[in-house]
């Protein structure tokens, strides 16, 4: 219920929202949790395993219970913390893990079965039969247990990711963070101040302390205004720093539009990578519950959260509140409630010398030993120095002390240090290079201490950055001592819950210890303590204390589990922002792309490139029909194919030829101007890296082509060779793949076609096979190469990319007028297999030059990359699988890529394996299937028959082994010189 006049948003406008279909009214500035409590809604969810009724425990992102689902269908977003979700008009939230309703949840039967569902239950019970794991046990467990569900539909929300850079990143904008930011900013540093709340101020928004004579929240607002006015400060609200990474990189999640009506034009979340020279962690502290019997009933909350609801949002979470604590700080909850006119039925303080700060009953040496109330707390049983009594109460504010938020300091394997004074872990110095810690996160709990430490740490940081620390006046503030006595668990009948989200209680930890899961990491896996969305933020330290007790060790010796990023859950949508669908990878389009689509060609991906598979003609019903036509067209008339995707590297300099000689295994020093040579490139280990042609365009200029697939790798390799191995060579090179559009013109009529478009015609004598040179097309300077990947009389013509689309249309029109046309990748593949030309199907990284029949190409007159390794005894003398051609004995026989080869009649099992098939096609030229493959000692087995076996596709075909060149072995077509 609301307390009149209380709350920072006391004058906030009314906001209407629904929870489980019921309409409620809240106030602008409320979180969903605050608005639900204002409407006396206590029961908000069912627990993970036992489906116990649960209410709101905290007022922050550490909330384990109050998880809701928002949105429907594709926009369904589960496990949203009601404690951080701000309300807006029309917000609709649903509870999770309850059916048919929150009040009557049938799976609550699990709670009655709890004696059988203890820690390790799944491991012990669902052991066998093994076949039941996936099909029976897992679906049952998944249905019964769990948090919110996804819709299964593709998420249409937009997400964003971004980079930011600064001198000092300050994480958390409470009193320490604000002072640190002000100090760093006044010293001239570029500052980013990030806070996960919608409003900066941290605990000052939740407390009634004064700072510098003003209400803490007002003071904080003033500092934020100062910071906002400074050009070197960037304020990031609703932004949680989620991880600390190497070299000052931090991940951060900004909830850009969670607090407003969903809007497709605005990203829902943004994932930031912030690079900071230094950072100051001012993340504050998290309050821990106490493990007493049945401490999980709705209405039992942390004491600090009760203060937050009262002071920030003017909500009293109960009519008659009790407080249970082991420290002074929790007494402030009683003081604030009494001041606000809310009944405080008692403060149960476990200490014999418990203080009294106001007008409320204090039960010294007090313990809460039992609670009652099925769907909401009704009463507690208190044992204290004066005896035992029942107290009627609908809200119990508990505090077992505060844990500094050390998480980020542990993200690079740092381990926190136990502090006996505050009975918790504090960050260990130097855990994250470049990160300092200030305020409550460092174990300093008074407001004065936090302000002071923010200034002090920021001064140290700016001095280290070489700046002059600006002068900051220390504001006056409360400096009460933090007094606490250990209290981890209370004996009594009933389960004493530790991890509310995973339904782990004290007995589970004891059982883990008993069953020898004594290491804290083992205990975590055995019990699930500290898993899921809250990662045990409330419960880890208490669970360690219980484990320490159960194993007879101290807490420091027991140690902590490893805190890993992210600090709060980060949606995959945010981390992968922009990478959905077409954003997954960049697309590279050729200049012929649109014309190709216009012709109805299906595209296939070749690396990042999109290339036409085939160009269907009216009446053709299968790809093979089109492919066969295109192959015949090239063999008989002329075909056009865009080959711009091949890598093109322009190489220049006096030592360019020597450089080529070093990266190719064959000789390039002897290549004449206006001539092209095929080159084979090896890796240093002697295996083939890539192949292609290189043209000499001038005395010191060459253009190397690479395969489409290896263009990037070759460029990187050339960089390596020139920078690391041969800096003595005077050579420069750059990729010009994007600068030139290049088209194959292939077939007996190729020269005729070219002569119809070139400004100056060519003839067979001046343009023999492997010639190259400059040409003009309608006044545009281009390059012509007489090379052939089809075995036909063929050319490749290149023009600057801006003329590519135009030249492609012109070439196609001309080819069609001559009875030819355009061809795609399928036909290109058939043409090259018929000629035994290799691609990366053959040079797949495990073959050397000798394996593909190019052993003699490795010149021994010079050194080159891969020269020495290619002469290894096992390569030269060993029996290896070598490139062969395969054709079916029966012309109808089917060949498949990936099939294996066996001696005819041998069992088709691994030990008899003789080789494998790398490329196959149906050859319309020869009228049967063809294959390229590797066969043991294959070069010496031409004419033998082998059995091709494809177990996956159920194919068995007897084949003849032959030379890999099936067509025109003397290359007479490509070398054609007549001028007809």
């Amino acid at each position, binding site marked *: 219920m609301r307390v009149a006049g209380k709350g920072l948003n006391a004058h906030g406008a009314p906001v209407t929202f629904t929870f489980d279909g019921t309409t409620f009214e809240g106030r602008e500035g409320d979180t969903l949790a605050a608005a639900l409590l204002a409407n006396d809604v206590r029961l908000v969810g069912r627990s993970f395993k036992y489906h116990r009724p649960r209410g709101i425990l905290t007022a922050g992102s550490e909330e384990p219970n109050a998880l809701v689902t928002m949105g429907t269908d594709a926009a369904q977003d589960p496990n949203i913390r009601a404690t951080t979700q701000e309300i807006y008009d029309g917000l609709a939230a649903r509870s999770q893990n309850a059916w048919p309703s929150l009040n009557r949840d049938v799976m609550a039967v699990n709670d009655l079965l709890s004696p059988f569902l203890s820690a390790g239950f799944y491991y012990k019970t669902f052991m066998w039969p093994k076949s039941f794991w996936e099909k029976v046990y897992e679906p049952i467990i998944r249905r019964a247990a769990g948090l919110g569900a996804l819709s299964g539909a593709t998420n249409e929300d937009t997400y964003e990711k971004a*980079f930011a850079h600064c001198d000092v990143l300050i994480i958390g904008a409470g009193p320490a963070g604000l002072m640190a930011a002000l100090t760093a900013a006044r010293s001239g540093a570029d500052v980013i101040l990030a806070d996960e709340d919608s409003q900066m101020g941290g605990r000052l928004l939740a407390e009634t302390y004064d700072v510098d004579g003003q209400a803490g929240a007002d003071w904080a607002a003033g500092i934020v205004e100062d910071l906002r006015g400074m050009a070197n400060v960037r304020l990031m609200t609703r932004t949680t720093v989620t991880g600390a*990474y*190497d*070299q*000052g*990189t931090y991940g951060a999640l900004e909830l850009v539009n969670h607090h407003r009506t969903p809007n497709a034009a605005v990203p829902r979340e943004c994932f930031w*990578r912030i*690079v900071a020279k230094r950072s100051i962690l001012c993340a504050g502290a998290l309050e821990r519950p106490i493990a007493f019997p049945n401490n999980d009933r709705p209405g039992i909350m942390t004491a600090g959260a009760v203060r937050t609801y009262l002071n920030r949002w003017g909500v009293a979470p109960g009519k008659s509140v009790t407080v249970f604590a082991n420290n002074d700080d929790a007494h402030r909850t009683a003081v604030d409630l009494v001041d606000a006119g809310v009944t405080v039925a008692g403060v149960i303080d476990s200490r014999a010398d418990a203080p009294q700060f106001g007008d409320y009953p204090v039960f010294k040496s007090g313990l809460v030993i039992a609670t009652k109330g099925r769907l909401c707390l009704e009463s507690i049983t208190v044992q204290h120095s004066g005896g035992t009594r029942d107290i009627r109460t609908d809200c119990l504010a508990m505090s077992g002390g505060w844990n500094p938020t050390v998480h980020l300091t542990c993200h*690079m394997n740092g381990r926190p240090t136990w502090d006996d004074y505050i009975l918790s872990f504090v960050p260990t110095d130097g855990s994250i*290079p470049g990160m300092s810690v200030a305020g409550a996160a460092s174990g300093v709990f008074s407001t004065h201490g936090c302000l002071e430490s923010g200034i002090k740490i920021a001064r140290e940081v700016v001095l280290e950055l070489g700046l002059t620390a600006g002068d900051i006046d220390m504001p006056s503030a409360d400096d009460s001592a933090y007094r606490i006595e250990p209290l981890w668990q209370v004996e009594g009948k009933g389960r004493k819950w530790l991890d509310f989200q995973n339904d782990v209680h004290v007995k589970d930890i004891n059982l883990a210890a008993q069953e020898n899961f004594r290491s804290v990491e083992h205990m975590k896996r055995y019990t699930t303590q500290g898993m899921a969305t809250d990662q045990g933020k409330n419960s880890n330290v208490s669970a360690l204390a219980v484990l320490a007790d159960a194993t007879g060790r101290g807490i420091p010796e027991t140690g902590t589990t490893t805190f890993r990023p992210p600090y709060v859950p980060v949606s995959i949508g945010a981390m992968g922002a922009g990478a959905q669908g077409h954003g997954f990878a960049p697309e590279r389009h050729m200049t012929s792309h649109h014309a190709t689509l216009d012709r109805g060609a299906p595209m296939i991906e070749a690396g990042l490139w999109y290339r036409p598979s085939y160009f269907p003609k009216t009446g053709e019903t299968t790809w093979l029909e089109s492919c066969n036509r295109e192959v015949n067209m090239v063999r008989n008339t002329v075909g056009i194919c865009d080959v711009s995707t091949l890598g093109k590297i322009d190489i220049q300099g006096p030592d360019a030829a020597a450089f080529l000689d070093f990266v190719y295994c064959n000789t390039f020093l002897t290549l004449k101007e206006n001539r092209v040579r095929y080159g084979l490139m090896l890796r*240093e*280990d002697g295996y083939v890296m890539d192949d292609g042609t290189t043209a000499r365009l001038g005395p010191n200029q060459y253009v190397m082509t690479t395969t489409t697939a290896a263009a*990037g790798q070759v460029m*990187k390799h050339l*960089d*390596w060779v020139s*920078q*690391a*191995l041969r*800096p003595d060579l005077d050579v420069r090179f750059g990729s010009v793949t994007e600068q030139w559009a290049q088209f194959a013109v292939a077939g007996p009529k190729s020269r005729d076609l070219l002569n119809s478009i070139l400004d100056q015609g060519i003839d067979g004598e001046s343009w023999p096979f492997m010639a190259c040179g400059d040409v003009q097309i309608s006044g545009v300077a281009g390059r012509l190469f007489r090379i052939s990947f089809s075995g036909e009389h063929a050319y490749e013509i290149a023009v600057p990319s801006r003329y590519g689309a135009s030249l492609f249309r012109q070439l196609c029109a001309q080819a069609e007028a001559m009875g030819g046309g355009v061809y795609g990748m399928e036909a290109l593949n058939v043409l090259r297999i018929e000629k035994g030309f290799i691609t990366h199907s053959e040079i797949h990284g495990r073959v050397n030059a000798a394996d593909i029949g190019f052993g003699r190409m490795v010149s021994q007159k010079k*050194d080159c990359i891969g*020269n*020495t*390794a290619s002469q*290894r*005894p096992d390569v030269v003398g060993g029996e290896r699988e070598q490139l062969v051609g395969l054709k079916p004995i029966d012309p109808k026989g089917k060949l498949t890529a990936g099939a294996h080869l066996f001696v005819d009649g041998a069992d088709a099992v691994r030990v008899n394996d003789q080789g494998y098939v790398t490329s196959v096609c149906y050859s319309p030229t020869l009228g049967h299937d063809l294959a390229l493959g590797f066969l043991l000692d294959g070069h010496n087995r031409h004419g033998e028959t082998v059995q091709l076996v494809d177990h996956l596709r159920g194919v068995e075909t007897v084949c003849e082994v032959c030379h890999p060149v099936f067509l025109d072995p003397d290359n007479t077509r490509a070398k054609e010189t007549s001028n007809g």
Partner: protein
Amino acid sequence: MRLPCPLCGERDRREFYYQGHATMLDRPARDAGIDAWDDYLHNRDNIAGEVEDLWHHEAGCGAWIKVTRNTVTHEVSGAKLVNGARK
């Protein structure tokens, strides 16, 4: 993770391609013998501590750099062009 490219300054590691240990810089002579080549090509120590390894500023200036990096602490203490003379 950030790497200091001697030409471009400090950059996100996504701009770099990782190659491996800087052994690759010490290419043996052609006739150094099979053992020297075997070591060069295949044998690497798995060092816990300071290592020198090779990175290519692939999405940047194209420089190959030798980075001094600690595999235990992840500290990056320096980077040089593989051919320091040609800065």
